[in-house]
């Protein structure tokens, strides 16, 4: 850690990991209710648990992004942050808002637009925190060295904060409501967040592989270009059946096929950089997470997205367990794993330790990734059966669901693996102090 102010990232990562634990435990509980539907049904109904599961995910990913920005911008800009005090105030606002949202969900006070259920005062809190963040980080970048990584990171973060404005716009017309709702949801995860993801990946590659900055930055621009060229009009794949014009079926299908490209590019980029790089970085776990994130993102967001994105297919699969399968693997690969890669890279330095190989951390990668892949497979099978029985044959929803019990049991088992992996990850970050397995003899370090 070269700059003292990078330390603020530590607080962000700690809060993010706490929410990560809440998120996966909430998911596990929701998965259990699929098997044993009477669980807590009057005390804590499914809709409340799901809000906690999804909202905790979104907030902790954002906290991870903010923390990552606070960690990498000083190094990239070659100067201290504009203000560490502002960064802590921003975090405090977000923590109060998050706790406020949790409490109000538990007592039944919430909105009803999916993922944007936060009470209005929490939404304003998020807006204020976002403005503080943008001011703080922009002033730091403007005063220092400008690099492609900070350019792309800042552009992604500015746009995602601006798009938050649509969280306040809720037309009475349901179809308009849905169309503008996607301005937040889709243009976050399939456009602006990809910019943040690419910037973080670029930074990690630069630090860990030792490949020339010029090469890294050039390819970063190519990757984010393909992300926005495909992702903006790719919004159309959500406009097939919500009352929007029919031309979106072709626009959405064609451009969302191209949405696979940035994820393929990020995966290729990561592997090529590691092959070409000549640095033998000691933090093997961070390297594993970086490569793993870009690979799983390609399969989860790219392949599983493509699986049901053509409108002829989506007509039948829309809103089935296929969507749930895709959602889980895409979020895990692209955003959960990329955040964990950043935590894994930064934590040893934030805690003042020499990077170590982090065996337990690597074990948690395989546990979580294996669990999430298995969950995706079983939900895909469940979704295929559901699509056939419900959308082709025309059986009623609950009759079909009753046939899917076995898959939901296997999904719960996969969920247990993910939760254990997540807890192991947190343990390995916060408790483990030294190498559990001594490294082998290094033949030619730095070669």
């Amino acid at each position: 850690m070269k700059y003292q102010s990078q330390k603020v990232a530590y607080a962000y990562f700690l809060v993010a990991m706490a929410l990560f634990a809440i998120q996966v435990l909430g998911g596990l509980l929701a998965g259990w209710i699929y098997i044993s539907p009477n669980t807590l049904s009057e005390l804590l109904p499914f809709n409340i648990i799901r809000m906690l599961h999804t909202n905790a995910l979104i907030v902790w990913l954002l906290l991870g992004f903010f923390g990552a920005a606070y960690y990498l911008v000083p190094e990239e800009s070659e100067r201290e942050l504009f203000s560490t005090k502002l960064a802590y105030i921003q975090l405090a606002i977000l923590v109060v808002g998050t706790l406020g949202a949790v409490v109000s969900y538990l007592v039944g006070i919430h909105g009803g637009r999916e993922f944007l259920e936060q009470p209005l005062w929490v939404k304003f809190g998020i807006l204020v925190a976002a403005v503080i963040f943008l001011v703080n980080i922009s002033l730091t970048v403007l005063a220092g060295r400008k690099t492609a990584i900070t350019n792309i990171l800042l552009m992604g973060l500015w746009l995602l904060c601006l798009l938050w404005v649509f969280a306040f716009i809720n037309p009475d017309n349901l179809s308009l409501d849905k169309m503008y709702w996607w301005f937040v949801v889709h243009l976050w995860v399939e456009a602006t967040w990809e910019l943040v993801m690419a910037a973080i990946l670029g930074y990690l590659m630069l630090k860990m592989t030792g490949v020339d900055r010029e090469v890294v930055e050039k390819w970063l621009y190519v990757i984010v270009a393909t992300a926005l060229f495909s992702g903006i009009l790719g919004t159309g794949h959500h406009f097939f059946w919500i009352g929007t014009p029919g031309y979106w079926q072709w626009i959405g299908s064609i451009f969302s096929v191209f949405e696979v490209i940035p994820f393929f590019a990020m995966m290729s980029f990561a592997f090529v950089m590691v092959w070409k790089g000549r640095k033998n970085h000691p933090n093997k776990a961070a390297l594993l997470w970086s490569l793993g994130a870009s690979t799983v993102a390609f399969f989860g967001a790219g392949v599983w997205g493509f699986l049901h994105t053509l409108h002829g297919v989506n007509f039948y699969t829309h809103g089935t367990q296929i969507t749930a399968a895709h959602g889980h693997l895409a979020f895990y690969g692209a955003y959960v794993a990329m955040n964990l890669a950043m935590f894994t890279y930064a934590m040893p330095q934030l805690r003042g330790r020499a990077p170590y190989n982090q065996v337990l951390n690597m074990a948690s990668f395989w546990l979580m990734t294996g669990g999430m892949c298995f969950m995706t497979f079983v939900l895909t099978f469940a979704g295929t059966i559901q699509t056939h029985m419900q959308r082709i044959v025309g059986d009623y929803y609950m009759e079909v669901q009753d046939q899917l019990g076995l898959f939901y049991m296997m999904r719960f088992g996969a969920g247990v693996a993910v939760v254990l992996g997540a807890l192991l990850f947190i343990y390995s970050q916060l408790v483990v102090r030294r190498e559990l397995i001594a490294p082998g003899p290094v033949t030619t370090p730095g070669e």
Partner: protein
Amino acid sequence: MSEILTKSRARNVFYGGSLFFVVVFVAMTVHSHRYIVETSTAGMPLTDEVRLGKHVWERASCINCHTLHGEGAYFAPEVGNVMTRWGVLDDPESAFEILNGWMQAQPSGIEGRRQMPFFDLTEEETRALAEFLRWADQTDTQNWPPNDAG
């Protein structure tokens, strides 16, 4: 390759191309907005009752179990076409009665069955919710869902 594709060229393509797609997207959004208001949702007027129904729908966070036009939580049935499924798309009174009867019977408490919570709604609110669901069902959704099962 590296001579043709320099970093600054890649950057310019990124900025220029993104701007182009943003402009196209905004133009299509404007058209879609008008299409929704004037055509696809024009089948039934957007009355104050429908508006109230949407607020009831949101306040109860129905979307976190059900789907509406295929979007939502996949834990409970699709309701974008529920009025068609019940055969009461053009009958407000029956729509209210069936919906009210269903809502009053929740939670069923049947062991091993997914439970819908009891929502303490006034008659006015339940009527509004029924009208909101009838309104949503009249939207031109390009013939989705494929059948009445939703």
